[in-house]
């Protein structure tokens, strides 16, 4: 007897391994008697297995066979070799859920859950109907088209094409189009970066009342990009944007008055603007407020530092950690650790000090050593020097074995060795 054709053998191998398409193809081969002897029961068997995995054609083919009077009852599921349980598997399955050493499975690596079949996609759902937008042929639609091309929603990403749609809308006096075009010139996306053009279109959109354009325009004027720097004029545009609730503009006004750039230094006004921005959740404003208030109202300063720290602002985490060291060492250790994990070398030093003395945290020289080593590696000047001294001193106490054991713990601390 001739051996099984190569393609059938390949299908069979893949089909038995659970490959849906191969199961379907093998079923079809048996159904049609192509390259193998026609065998409807084998066809039914493989088509059912393909259908069970969701093969779109398999179910339909089975229905067709049924319509032709063929019995499509699936044969009793005799397990494939893959499914057959070996003695070892059987013994494994009889073991208790907890590990053999009574470690409760705590030392086993975690197995990630299956990927969600319908995950959130915040970067662009692809639900943009480009054809409809082109038909709409209005400035708003042109801006939407520009957005679609810029973000690759419903079309291939094409920043040059985005610029052309934004330009069309901007020239038709659409403020959103003007703002979007200005951003493209500002950041050099799809077009050569050009401060003068960016300024021109920000100004057009700002005059039309677009808060973000007013804010970006103010930033350009303050920095002297595309025009001579003029903090006074910048302040006016910040105020216009701030009046519309633009949080970043409120923060910038606070910073202007705190530093006295082009305006008289005015801590009261600075604090007021920072407070407004902080209430809208600007972490930098919360941090600056903490700095302003630290000398006269420590509790309020700590509250603002906490708010900024919870938002992930590393500087605030460091300041909070340093300020809490005496009154609440446990919280100090927590915030210093967060800042240290984010790469702050001063936080690493201070955390190491808490770990060595066991204040607010369990005494742990090995962990302190790892943080000092990091601070020495990534820090500069004094920080690196102090950390270096600490590393040397601890190394003497811990010995080589102690250091090796500490290094093995590095991943546990989120440190890369």
């Amino acid at each position, binding site marked *: 007897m001739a051996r099984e054709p190569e393609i059938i053998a390949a299908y069979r191998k893949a089909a038995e391994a659970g490959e849906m398409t191969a199961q379907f193809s093998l079923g*079809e081969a048996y159904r049609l008697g192509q390259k193998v002897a026609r065998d409807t029961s084998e066809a039914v068997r493989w088509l059912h297995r393909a259908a069970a995995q969701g093969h779109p054609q398999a179910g339909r083919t089975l229905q067709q066979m049924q319509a032709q009077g063929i019995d499509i009852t699936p044969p009793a599921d005799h397990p494939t070799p893959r499914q057959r349980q070996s003695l070892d598997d059987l013994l494994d399955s009889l073991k208790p859920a907890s590990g053999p050493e009574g470690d409760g*499975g705590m030392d086993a690596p975690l197995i990630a859950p*299956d990927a969600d*079949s319908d995950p959130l996609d915040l970067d662009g759902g692809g639900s943009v109907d480009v054809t409809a937008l082109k038909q709409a042929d209005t400035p708003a639609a042109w801006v939407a088209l520009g957005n679609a091309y810029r973000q690759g929603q419903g079309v291939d990403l094409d920043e040059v094409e985005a610029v052309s749609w934004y330009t069309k809308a901007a020239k038709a006096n659409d403020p959103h189009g003007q703002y979007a075009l200005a951003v493209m010139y500002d950041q050099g996306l799809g077009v050569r970066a050009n401060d003068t053009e960016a300024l021109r279109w920000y100004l057009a959109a700002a005059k039309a009342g677009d808060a973000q354009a007013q804010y970006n325009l103010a930033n350009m004027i303050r920095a002297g990009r595309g025009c001579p720097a003029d903090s006074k004029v910048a302040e006016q545009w910040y105020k216009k944007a701030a009046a519309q609730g633009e949080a970043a503009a409120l923060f910038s006004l606070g910073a202007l008055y705190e530093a006295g750039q082009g305006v008289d230094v005015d801590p009261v006004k600075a604090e007021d603007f920072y407070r407004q921005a902080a209430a809208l959740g600007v972490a930098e404003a919360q941090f600056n407020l903490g700095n302003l208030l630290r000398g006269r109202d420590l509790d309020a300063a*700590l509250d603002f530092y906490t708010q900024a720290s919870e938002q*992930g602002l590393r500087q605030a985490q460091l300041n909070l950690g340093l300020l809490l060291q005496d009154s609440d060492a446990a919280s100090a250790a927590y915030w210093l650790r*967060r800042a240290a994990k984010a790469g702050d070398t001063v936080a690493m030093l201070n955390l190491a000090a808490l770990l060595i003395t066991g204040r607010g945290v369990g005494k742990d020289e090995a962990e302190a050593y790892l943080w000092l080593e990091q601070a020495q590696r990534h820090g500069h000047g004094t920080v690196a020097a102090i950390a270096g001294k600490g590393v040397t001193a601890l190394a003497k106490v811990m010995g080589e074995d102690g250091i090796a054991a500490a290094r093995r713990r590095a991943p546990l601390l989120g440190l890369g060795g």
Partner: protein
Amino acid sequence: MASPNVSFEIQVMADKHWVVAQFADDEEKAKAFADNLLQKGNHAAVRVVRDFRRLDGLHTETVIQEKTTTVKAGAADVSLSPITDAPVCTQLADFYGAPARLTMGRLVRKYLDEVVVTPTEMLHSAAEMKRFADKGSLLFSAIDRVSTLQAGLTGEESKTRRDFLSKAWDDMVARGRKFATRKVKAPKSVADILAEVEKGGEEHPYLCLSMMSLGLLETRSWLGKLDLLSKWAAEAAGTPLLPMIDGVVADIVVSAQLIQDLLGFQSNLGAALIQLCNLAEGKAEPAKFAPEIFTNLNTMFAAGTLTQSKDVLLGRVIRELGGGNPLSRNEPKQEFEVFCKVMHRVVSHKGVLGGGAMAEAILHRITRIHAHLGTVTASQAIDLTLSALSDHALGMQYLLALASSPLGQGMGAGLTDLIIAKVRGADHINKWVPVRQPPPERMIALAVLNRTLLASSVFEGEIRDGLGRHVDEVLARYLLDEEVIEKIDKPDDPLALRAIRLIKFCGSGVLIEGKSLDLARSRVIEHLRQPQFEEKFLASVPEPGKGEQHLREFHRLLVQTGFR
């Protein structure tokens, strides 16, 4: 006549591989078939392969035609989505229930998003069921997929299960057709729905949902349907329609597409998950570009009307948090910080929002964040999680939630021993909750933890009671050390004020039934036992004529807080 030794395969390009689409025994037929396939535009390339069986039995294959084209973008993908479990329905009513509908919502998500129809609408409309059944082999595949999963659970043969599901589908179609013969107009209001239901002829819930579906099917957008449901919810206050409205909202909020539109602008996935939690608890502020319906929905969640929908939203948070998409895609360096924010939104002193499943998701996420450092074991992931939580009380709430999950149960004694050691190791309130937290918050943290411990099925008997007692003792020590009761019961204040303040303190829930509550109670009893308490109480009330009223209030509070 074609040679028996020659055959033709028509192959199509699928996922960068050639896959046989059809066999033919005639070259012309094969080429025609290939051209036809190519014209449909579903495949980038199609080819015909001639197969010749030689006399020695070996085969020779020759590509005789290969053509390429561009794939049509318009053809919507409505294939099934993977599911790993499917709750077993035993009677027809189960198919209309929440678990079945939610499973359908996940399995045929692409189809439902394409036609913008909820499972509820589909199951109550003969026309929609027909449309679905006509969509290629989708129905057949769906039944097959579910029956295979369920056969594994029930121990039945998958064919038996498949037959049962097919029969149930036919029954539902027949029921839908029967309703269609009533030829009812789509309802404009809840009154229209109730009026039709009053006529009878079917079970009330079925009729209600059929009427609702009739109205909802006229709107082919998720947001539009939510608008309509919110309007009905306002009209349906106090009627049995509310849970049904909740059910359909739950069907709708399963869709990722809808959630994206509903949330408006979100800077990253982490922010979106926090917003989803806020919405589920009715505490959200609409974001930029959020549709108007967002505020209405938030109000409904706040009122506690949408319990099924809340579960669906939290289910989404759990899957996304445990999944692989970055929480901070645009600023990868902020991934850990954003994770901390999300984690502190779901883990609070009052417990873990979403329970054990959320605790598992957190563990998976922190494992992913640290995956670049090598394999992370369960115990390392737990340590990393605990060190990322801002205090010990939060850590214990987290561990207790984790211990109640399947993953935690699988960890066995390793996890329970850890909890016992961590609880016993913290003997002062400063080790549990930061000093700077307001005193009520600190006390609530311990009181709630005590209740969580005692309600937990993780520990039994003396161990559980002992852990609860330990937390109680920490709180009692705090009351004594900080002289909390003395601060409430100031000797210079009028007796009436002191007594009412004390009794309110006892009933506020910040104390633990045991040592700490006894401390406060014994002070109340001290007052009560003094001679002529009531006279002194009345005399101490500064506002004339209000004494009796305050005394009555005091007695009411006494009863309420368990004094006899």
